[in-house]
């Protein structure tokens, strides 16, 4: 189902024309209202009228999370506070929080974006939707909240925490859809099973999941536990919050709200644009935002984009689930390797622990990868062959997923733990003197 069919099924040519017009507007708007961009654009020699086609976007300098932090809290706002009606912030776990502001138009645009993706995922006005994201400075809860209200769904703003009470409301209200992180949805199902109510007391049919990655295995687990249909959506507070892209019922990629967000895929080292279908870093330019417009924002998320029309009828660009973060991407023998790929390969084997470590070395002129995992299941120690069989099967699985040779080492439990109990995932020794 569509929320704004005309936009969602617009032909590519008209979409490109709309994007170009809005890109020019955004460049001009940034130049005139944000001193940071005035300086950046002057240095690069870019003005709105020099942009003749969408390809010209490559001449615009990129914006990074560090730029947002350096201008904490309001330095990149393009509107005075009298026009700003909402302020959100990121959690700031990796440094100072990044702060974003919204005008009335921004909030309206944002709820349209969310309305589109939740309807694409199958939500309707008949749904009772519980929001189990934490409300507060985080954009997730309020973003979904207003988008779902916009399509006429009944929103239950339960927030996160007090799981038993949330489950009681779900049973008593006949709640049909759930907004949560995948891990919380799974946790809720575990608590639900411990209670004295059969799972058939819950009517949840649709999951609108986001704000963290979800492996296919985990998705299947959640769907089985709840008997629901799980969909993914994507966004980040710097751009708007949830609603940048989302899966339709075909679940073959996340549809981009391209009239508001212009996506590019670039090589994360050279920043050169990559061909359609190649995996690279997602860079996004906001096309209508007034509060805090961003030019070519480096998301650090690695994904692919396709422009093939979707079976659902939408013509928008579709992005893959995020493969990894460019921050922790490793290039080994020319192949991009992400710790997250390794994690999702190893998950599900009960014989090994949750910690793992990647050791990259340079031997002669060749890079080598060693993956260390902790053996925790003592029962296989009785037979050497069983231990070697485990080692070989893990190695084979990893090589299939990564596309490069690796060595798999079984190590003792706890031996991978480092300071404060947190495992150091990657040990790159290639540039160390031997």
């Amino acid at each position, binding site marked *: 189902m569509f929320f704004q069919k005309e936009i969602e099924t617009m032909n590519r040519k008209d979409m490109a024309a709309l994007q170009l017009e809005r890109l020019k507007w955004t460049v001009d708007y940034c130049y005139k209202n944000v001193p940071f961009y005035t300086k950046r654009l002057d240095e690069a020699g870019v003005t709105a009228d020099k942009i003749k086609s969408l390809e010209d976007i490559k001449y615009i300098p990129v914006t990074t999370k560090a730029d947002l932090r350096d201008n904490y809290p309001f330095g990149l706002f393009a509107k005075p506070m009298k026009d700003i009606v909402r302020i959100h912030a990121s959690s700031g776990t990796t440094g100072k929080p990044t702060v974003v502001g919204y005008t009335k138009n921004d909030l309206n645009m944002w709820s349209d974006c969310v309305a589109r993706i939740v309807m694409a995922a199958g939500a309707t006005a008949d749904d009772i939707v519980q929001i189990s994201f934490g409300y507060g400075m985080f954009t997730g809860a309020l973003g979904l909240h207003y988008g779902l209200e916009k399509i006429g769904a009944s929103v239950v703003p339960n927030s996160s925490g007090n799981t038993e009470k949330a489950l009681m409301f779900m049973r008593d209200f006949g709640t049909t859809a759930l907004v949560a992180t995948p891990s919380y949805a799974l946790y809720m199902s575990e608590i639900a099973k411990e209670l004295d109510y059969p799972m058939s007391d819950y009517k949840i049919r649709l999951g609108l999941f986001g704000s963290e990655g979800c492996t296919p295995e985990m998705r299947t687990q959640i769907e089985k536990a709840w008997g629901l249909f799980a969909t993914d959506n994507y966004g980040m507070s710097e751009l708007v919050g949830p609603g940048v892209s989302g899966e339709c019922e075909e679940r073959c990629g996340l549809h981009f709200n391209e009239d508001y967000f212009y996506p590019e895929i670039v090589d994360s080292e050279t920043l050169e644009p990559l061909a359609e279908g190649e995996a690279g870093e997602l860079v996004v330019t906001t096309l209508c935002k007034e509060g805090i417009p961003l030019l070519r924002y480096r998301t650090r998320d690695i994904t692919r984009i396709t422009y093939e029309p979707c079976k659902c009828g939408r013509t928008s660009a579709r992005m893959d689930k995020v493969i990894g973060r460019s921050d922790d991407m490793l290039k080994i023998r020319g192949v991009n390797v992400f710790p997250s790929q390794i994690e999702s390969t190893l998950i599900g084997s009960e014989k090994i622990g949750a910690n793992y470590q990647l050791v990259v070395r340079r031997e002669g002129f060749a890079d080598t990868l060693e993956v260390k995992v902790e*053996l*925790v*299941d*003592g*029962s296989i*120690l*009785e*037979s*050497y062959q069983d*231990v*070697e069989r485990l080692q070989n099967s893990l190695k084979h699985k990893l090589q299939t997923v990564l596309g490069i040779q690796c060595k798999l*080492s*079984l*190590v*003792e*439990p*706890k*031996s991978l733990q480092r300071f404060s109990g947190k495992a150091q995932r990657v040990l790159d020794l290639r540039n160390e003197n031997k």
Partner: protein
Amino acid sequence: MAIKQISVFVENKPGRLAEITELLAKNNIDIRALSIADTTDFGILRLIVNDPESTVQILKNDGMTVSATEVLGVAIPDVPGGFAKAIRTITDKGISLEYAYAFITPKSGSAYVIIRVENNELATEALNDAGIKIIEQGDIF
């Protein structure tokens, strides 16, 4: 009837075996027999000790991957062909042998062999029939 054997997963790194055995010594665990088999990366240490239950607990508390299984202990006359006879008895019954290791104690003139077979009951029966003595935990401490 059978003897409890402890298997410990040990990484191949300098000093690791010393650390583990020192930990056992500190806890007054007496090791009567041991075997260690290794690849380049890891080894599996197999132990016969005076107090298997505590040993498992001590090692587990230290975070190690451990298992306990029952193995057979066989007393073999210290003469040529003694071991061969025992092994022949088992293999003739079609019972396959996973591994074996030998040790002696100051108490008797026999050599002791720990054997790990796929079926303890069948092997015990066969050895008994052949008049080969099966030892118990109490015989070696």
